[in-house]
């Protein structure tokens, strides 16, 4: 019953078709060879080959970490990692997407944690098994200093963990490569939450504004605005001053 739908990418945009033949290269998708455009992203290549992706694509712009991919290149012993949505293919690339990363996410009550090393001791005690091998940092497609933030977590330096893990997409490549079986990205999330909640300085103006709203300070003005006709509103809008 399920039928494939098409969201055709017909383009009526100002786009002239220059029909220079596309340069093609060969990639090995899960070991099977396909010819794909040389300038494709890994995700584009997988789709070009004819796959309908279910797992392995989310935002398609480098924010969600759904598209973690491991690959090797010809005559090179190294394992590389990349985000399929933003990494370009190379000739002879042998690639596989990771459909999901097994990762533990313990439950906790953020209100009952202290913003120091004890939080990590309680929730993610395995971080203390870190052997400082730096494999996690090498595996990070965002080029983050993952090991440094795990080390910072071991010292209870929450601000540093927050800062170094800020751009983490939870793609999980670090966790899957870690010999100490740490789920680094979840440690980063915990640190950010602890920082935001406990360590970031309070805004007095925010408190004041919320109090004003509760005390219905803006009620009268709102009522006036809501009574206005479109034209009256328009006039007020175009006359408003700019900061």
């Amino acid at each position, binding site marked *: 019953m399920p039928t494939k739908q098409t969201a055709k990418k017909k383009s009526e945009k*100002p786009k002239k078709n220059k029909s220079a033949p596309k340069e093609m290269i060969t990639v090995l998708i899960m070991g099977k060879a396909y010819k794909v455009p040389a300038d494709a992203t890994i995700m584009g290549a997988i789709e070009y080959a004819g796959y309908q992706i279910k797992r392995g694509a*989310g935002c398609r712009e480098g924010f969600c970490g759904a598209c973690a991919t491991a690959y090797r290149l010809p005559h090179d012993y190294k394992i590389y990692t990349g985000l399929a949505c933003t990494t370009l293919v190379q000739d002879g690339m042998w690639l596989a997407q990771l459909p999901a990363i097994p990762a533990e996410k313990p439950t906790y009550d953020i209100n009952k944690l202290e913003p120091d090393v004890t939080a990590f001791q309680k929730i993610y005690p395995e971080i203390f098994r870190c052997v400082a091998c730096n494999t996690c940092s090498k595996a990070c497609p965002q080029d983050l200093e993952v090991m440094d933030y795990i080390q910072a977590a071991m010292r209870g330096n929450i601000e540093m963990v927050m800062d170094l893990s800020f751009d983490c997409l939870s793609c999980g490549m670090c966790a899957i490569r870690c010999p100490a079986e740490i789920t680094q990205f979840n440690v980063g999330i915990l640190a950010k939450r602890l920082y935001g909640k406990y360590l970031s300085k309070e805004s007095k103006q925010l408190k004041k504004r919320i109090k004003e709203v509760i005390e219905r300070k803006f009620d009268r003005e709102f009522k006036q605005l809501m009574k206005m006709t479109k034209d009256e509103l328009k006039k007020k809008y*175009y006359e408003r001053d700019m900061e």
Partner: protein
Amino acid sequence: MYPEYMRPSLKKVAQTRKQRFELAKTDKPVFPPMSAEEREEVLSKFHPDYKPDSKRKIKIGVNKGNIFTTEVAEMLESRSRIKPDIFDLSKPDLETDILIIGGGGAGCAAALIAAEKGSKSIISTKLRLGDANSMMSQGGMQAAVSALDSPTLHFLDAMGGGHFDNKPELVRALTENGPDVVKWLEELGMVWDKNEDGSLVVRHGGGTSRKRMHSSRDYTGAIIMRTLMDEVRNHPEKIDVQEFMPTIELILDKSGKCAGGILYNLETEEYFVVKAKATIITTGGYGRLHIRGFDTTNHYGATGDGLVIAYRAGAKLLYMDSVQYHPTGAAFPEQIGGFLITEAIRGAGGQPLNKFGELFVFPREPRDVESSAFIRECEERGNGIETPSGRLGVWLDSPLIEMLHGEGYLDKQFPAMHRQFIRYGIDIATEPMLVFPSLHYQNGGIEINAKCETNIPGLYVAGEATGGVHGRNRLMGNSVLDYNVYGRLSGKYATNYAKSVKLGALSLQHIQTYEDELKKANIKTKLITPILLPSYTPEDVRKRQLTAQYEGTLR
């Protein structure tokens, strides 16, 4: 790296920069903002929504006769994935208080509030939790916090941005709840950008009269979304997260109350009956419909499913004739075509320029106006820059931002943007970006009131799937606020309702009724919806996929 032939134009951009920098420092607008008449003119001539074939009447359903975006009308005049009589509705596979359809920002916020108020919920979501537009917002969230600002000024900006078509009571709730959302998120552990003294960093966005854009570097959505998801996962006893399990139809009861949905396991291809006392649709937008062939900034699952299932069940839609194109989608390199370049770049002083390195529009007009001005500059005036693949674009001068705010500012404040381009050998601290409008946001949607109620009892909607909050044009930063404000309100009101509602026997009769209407209107269509996922399979491959619709062992 930019191709050689673009060098002369890039040189002009560099040459005019000093002068534009002096101008930017004066605090006067760097280009005269348009009057109401000028706005109207550029919109009517160049906005894609104004093209004659961009809209048509919808032939069936509650909104029959209303003007809809053509692609949306086509999507709605379609057939269900299921035959209703196959399902034994008397034996639901799962039961819960609240079925939440969509695990993005609105869905997670709704689930958290529902849990807090004592309801159990199931989140049915198409991909992974958080694979959503909410994960992608970069620029930030509006909230009237600063001393110079007020919720009423925020109200006025939002109404003006939406061309005064917004439902005022929705805008009031949106703007009045803003400051509280900032605090709520911070208490959950959201990291807001702050100054030394703890005050919140605020910037301008398109159409704002006060600086009220709150951010978290340029990973604002990602940080909010991961905070919400982490908290959702802290409550497994209250919130049951079902990933790769989209809802493909709603279920009503005999008296027409919403009573849950049919869920579909994308991987095993099984269908499940889920009975719920209340249902909240939080399925987000429709960017992946690629309206008028535009690239989109949206995530993979943004296919307008919520509109389809709600419409088939009889929910009213509002403003489905208006589409938001974001002015600054990437136009080069090809691989990131359509990717979003956050409006905060212009908020921080980035300027759009033509091929001569000249300003041609105030950088912070509302989005539809700004987009139309870009299209005019490229199409009518011929002042765009052409890419090797034949796209057109205008420059967005980012190095100016470094001059205004100091060296290293872009890398620190816009790490995602910086990373996006440096992969292709373009350093946005020293070279501008090439941009063109990209399909970004579903302005209209399912009509709600300030309690997120629809015309169907028991059906609530929140976030991008709704219509009315933003009129016919949303301002930047108001939808992150929207999904938080209304996600929370929907969780609250759905819980209240679920506590007392008594459901009758379940029914899928509305699906048959809709099918009959299609027939009566003489609509012949092969389209089966919800679309769930777009397909980017090349035509020649598709032709060889002979058994793609065959119902044997190997489809």
